[in-house]
């Protein structure tokens, strides 16, 4: 058990994987000498050399395309997209190539690559550096999608992702890198694709992932302390595969569910979660599943506007209170 950060746990996962498997290479902008825009890959180039920690030109489309080819040719590439906001440049390689190769070619080969990236608000980085675009990925069959919320998962989920036979988009949250936590790298993690019940509670179920999980947990604390409301909180961990089996009994018991996502509401992850929970638990619901999600607007650089463009702990608390009034 060590005390580390989300960033440190990610770096540890990469280090361990690279030590274990010669085929693992990291490639992306500034991943080597610079150590990664958010410092995740710091030092790796010294340990593993330039052939395995590859600094690339600013060519997002070709980075992903090269990772696809590398994976097909036997490497286990971990490509880094500096901000998920740049995914637009890579969507063809990601959605038309990586995601479809196994299927189009009749199962001859898979594309075991990772696209590591980070998203979310919190740094006044403006409309093109603060988005939460996981819905694009979730809507693309063939792509796995993992979004760690905890220090533990920063390590274990990344390690698991790196063993998947299919392409995984792995989205970190820029607001979590400095978060501290305990990590036992030898612990048995929750299985890949399993959600984790972070907190039990029979009044309302809050389903979330990534940084919003912490907002949900904070809200649940407040609700308990100030209102005696018991909120269950679930960390989805992966959005593809997605685990409704864990959620279902909780919602059936509570009769109320809220989904919390930083992505914009319309046609986003929250819509899928709400639709699916409704399908699974319809007869048990007292209210429609409530979507607490990003506003349907771009993110402002103004810290004030930025903050209120996505769910806050206070807002989650307030919504839960409204639901239980």
């Amino acid at each position, binding site marked *: 058990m060590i005390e580390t950060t989300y960033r440190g746990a990610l770096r540890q996962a990469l280090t361990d994987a690279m030590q274990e498997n010669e085929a693992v290479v990291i490639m992306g902008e500034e991943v080597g000498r610079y150590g990664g825009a958010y410092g995740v890959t710091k030092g790796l180039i010294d340990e593993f050399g330039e052939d395995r920690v590859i600094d690339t030109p600013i060519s997002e489309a070709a980075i992903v395309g*090269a990772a696809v*080819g*590398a994976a*097909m*040719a036997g490497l286990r590439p971990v490509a880094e997209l500096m901000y998920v906001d740049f995914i637009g440049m890579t969507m063809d390689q990601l959605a038309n190539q990586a995601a479809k190769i196994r299927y189009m*070619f009749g199962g*001859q080969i898979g594309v075991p690559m990772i696209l590591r990236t980070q998203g979310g608000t919190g740094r006044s980085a403006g409309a093109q550096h603060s988005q939460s675009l996981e819905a694009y990925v979730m809507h693309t069959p063939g792509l796995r999608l993992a979004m760690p919320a905890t220090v533990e998962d920063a390590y274990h989920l990344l390690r698991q992702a790196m063993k998947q036979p*299919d392409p995984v988009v792995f989205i970190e949250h820029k607001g979590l890198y400095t978060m501290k936590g305990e990590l036992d790298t030898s612990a048995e993690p929750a299985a890949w694709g399993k959600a984790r019940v972070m907190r039990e509670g029979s009044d309302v179920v809050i389903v979330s992932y990534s940084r919003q999980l912490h907002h949900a947990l904070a809200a649940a604390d407040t609700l308990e302390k100030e209102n005696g409301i018991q909120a269950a909180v679930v960390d989805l961990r992966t959005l593809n595969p997605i685990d409704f089996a864990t959620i279902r009994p909780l919602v059936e018991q509570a009769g109320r569910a809220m989904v919390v996502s930083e992505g914009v509401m319309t046609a986003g992850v929250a819509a899928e979660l709400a639709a699916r929970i409704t399908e699974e638990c319809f007869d048990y619901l007292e209210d429609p599943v409530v979507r607490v999600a990003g506003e349907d607007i771009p993110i402002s650089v103004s810290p004030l506007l930025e903050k209120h463009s996505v769910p806050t702990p206070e807002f989650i608390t307030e919504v839960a209170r409204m639901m239980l009034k």
Partner: protein
Amino acid sequence: MTEKNSMPGSNSGLPDLYRHMRRVRTFEERVGELFVRGKSAGSMLHLSVGEESAAVGVCSHMHDGDTFTTHHRGHGIFLARGADPARMMAEIAGKETGYCHGKGGSMHIADMGLGHLGANAIVGGGIPAVVGAGLAARNGKKDVVSLAFFGDGATGQGILYESMNMAALWRLPVMFVCINNQYGMGTRIDQATANPRLHERAEAFGLVARTVDGLEVEEVADAAAELIAGARAGKPAFLAIECYRFYGHARKDKSPYRAEAEEAEGRNKDPVLRARTKLIESGIMAETDLDAMDAEIAQEMDATIDFAVSGNEPQMSSMFRDVYAPEEAEPEPVRTRIERILARQ
């Protein structure tokens, strides 16, 4: 994985080059027939007639372990590299017996056994993969090269330049092969760029770059030999092959945007005929021997149609297979989901 048709590891001379070009030509003619008989899966069939020297000339210098990607007009390249034409034809017909079990079709054929990392229906889509394959070769210290084949139209795609830049920067064993058939659909190359000397772009990124005339398969093969050898040694290369697209863009296009005189002149640049004439004139092969060779090829290719037509349709149950690896759960079918939720299960 797949039994390979004899494709020489080095340029073993004009007879072989001719034979492979003829096989490509005849195969493509049969694809046309398959369509006319209503047995192809769709009409997005892009024939490489007129471009045989590119496929054959370049592939004659590929070795075991080399990899490549192709474009939407890639039948000839794959065949030249040793594909089984019957399984190709079956794939083009959308059959279970095809290379990709009917999921891929003409534009998405692949064969990992032959190092074919895949044809692509996205113009330029297959190009960056060779950079990755080149990295794998470099890191694994394997003496292999990876080739991206694409059309002149793909020079409009930014990803080509991103890929060439990376290949040159990292000195990867990679070659970019541009089959310049003068057209991207209805757009003539000079309507798509102010400077059609395409190899100059590759040069500007630091690649070794050449343009050759596709009329002469031996010239193509020689240039390929030199550039591929260089690429293997860490000097990534670019080769443009000038040729002419004999027919329409896809099977239904009659190329109304091209003048008849231009087409006639273009079709005069026939690398297959040229090689044949040369073989006869230089006394290397007799016309009767060539006729016999052609007839044998015709027979081989006729059989591909029978194989394709008689193949089974894919099973409906295969629909959810291969989205993910076999050991993974298949996606839940919409029907199952709906039945389940309406039954409240």
